[in-house]
């Protein structure tokens, strides 16, 4: 469902969307069943002259309860297990695992800007050719990135909707994660945790570039804060 609203830009975006599909099917079934039954009963048992309501004694209640409560109870349990399995597997892939990554990018959030430290030409972070940018994140299509997220002042949240990625940044902590872009283009990075009066003016741009374009950018970076050309 989500793919109609937001393009799938990372390797795991389709898995999250698949999970949403599973939840959508299960919940829609139960929702329609419940609402359908609800409105049917409202129509069927509306007040009619001369008709008295049914009195349900304990024996009858016990019999009906099996049909109305016990069976749905078990069916919902099965549905829950399906949802849990899907949720845990997707969660484990996105948040628990750390695949072998090609490059690391360090992200620092502060009121109200993002600082991105790119590895630069040598692919190693914390070397002389690192490219530090503000509010511009450049990544290469198809490469697996590890990110290290930190915050300087208050809580922020690094959210890239096309990646289906979101992670809060907490001052004092370094939180890691990974992504693998699969769609070239220019996308939003948003702050998704209220961070003061400038929360609404804390956007950043994500540039997913083909290997050639990315190499070109590394050679001639734009909008950089710190960059030492050899």
């Amino acid at each position, binding site marked *: 469902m989500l793919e109609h609203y937001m393009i799938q830009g990372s390797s795991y975006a389709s898995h999250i969307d698949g999970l949403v599909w599973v939840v959508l099917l299960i919940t829609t079934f139960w929702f329609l069943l419940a609402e359908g039954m609800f409105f049917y009963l409202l129509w069927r048992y509306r007040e009619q002259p001369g008709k008295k309501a049914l009195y349900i004694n304990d024996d009858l209640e016990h019999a009906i309860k099996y049909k109305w409560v016990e069976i749905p109870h078990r069916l919902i349990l099965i549905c829950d297990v399906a949802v849990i399995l899907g949720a845990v597997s997707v969660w484990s892939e996105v948040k*628990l695992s750390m695949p072998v990554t090609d490059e*690391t990018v360090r992200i*620092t959030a502060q009121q109200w800007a993002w600082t991105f430290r790119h590895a630069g030409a040598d692919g190693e972070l914390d070397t002389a050719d690192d490219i530090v940018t503000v509010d511009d994140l450049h990544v290469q299509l198809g490469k697996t990135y590890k990110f290290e997220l930190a915050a300087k002042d208050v809580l922020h949240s690094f959210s890239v909707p096309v990646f289906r990625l979101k992670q809060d940044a907490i001052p*004092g902590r370094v939180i890691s994660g990974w992504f693998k872009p699969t769609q070239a283009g220019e996308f939003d990075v948003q702050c998704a945790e209220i961070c003061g009066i400038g929360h609404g003016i804390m956007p950043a741009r994500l540039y997913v570039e083909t290997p050639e374009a990315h190499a070109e950018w590394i050679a001639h970076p734009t909008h950089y804060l710190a960059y030492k050309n050899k």
Partner: protein
Amino acid sequence: MSSHTESHGAHSPNEAPHATHEDAHYIKIWAILVALLVVSVTGPMLEIRVVTLLTAFGIAVVKAFLVAKHFMHLDTEKKFVVQLLVVCLGLVFLFFMATSPDIMKHFGMNWVNESAKNANIPEKIVHHGGVEGAAEHAEGAAEHAEGAAAPAEGAPAHPAGEAH
């Protein structure tokens, strides 16, 4: 209706009978409590960690039990009152257990609490710690050295996550 009909004499018949002890009983309990207090203060003087913990917290539990049972009369109170208090203690325990992976530990899967780790470094400690703290401090110093090598922009690299 005067209000003192409600005093102790007016308990309705279905109430739990409240055992009334003689004053001597309470004084005896108090004497035990004071003796336990003396043990809990002198125990740590041996400066053995196990003994300190046992005398400090083990005896606190015993004292709490004695006060609750004999002074608060929980032994003769209705069962549901005891259950209520135990459930509340259980909730505190639940909170503690579920929160400890994030607060008590300073690293976990794909995250590390740099500032809490840096707080453990020995430089910030004015006086030397106990014997048992030494190993921790050494570890803290190693972390610190690593942290110091990290760049200045406020996000030191720390690959603790991959270790898991």
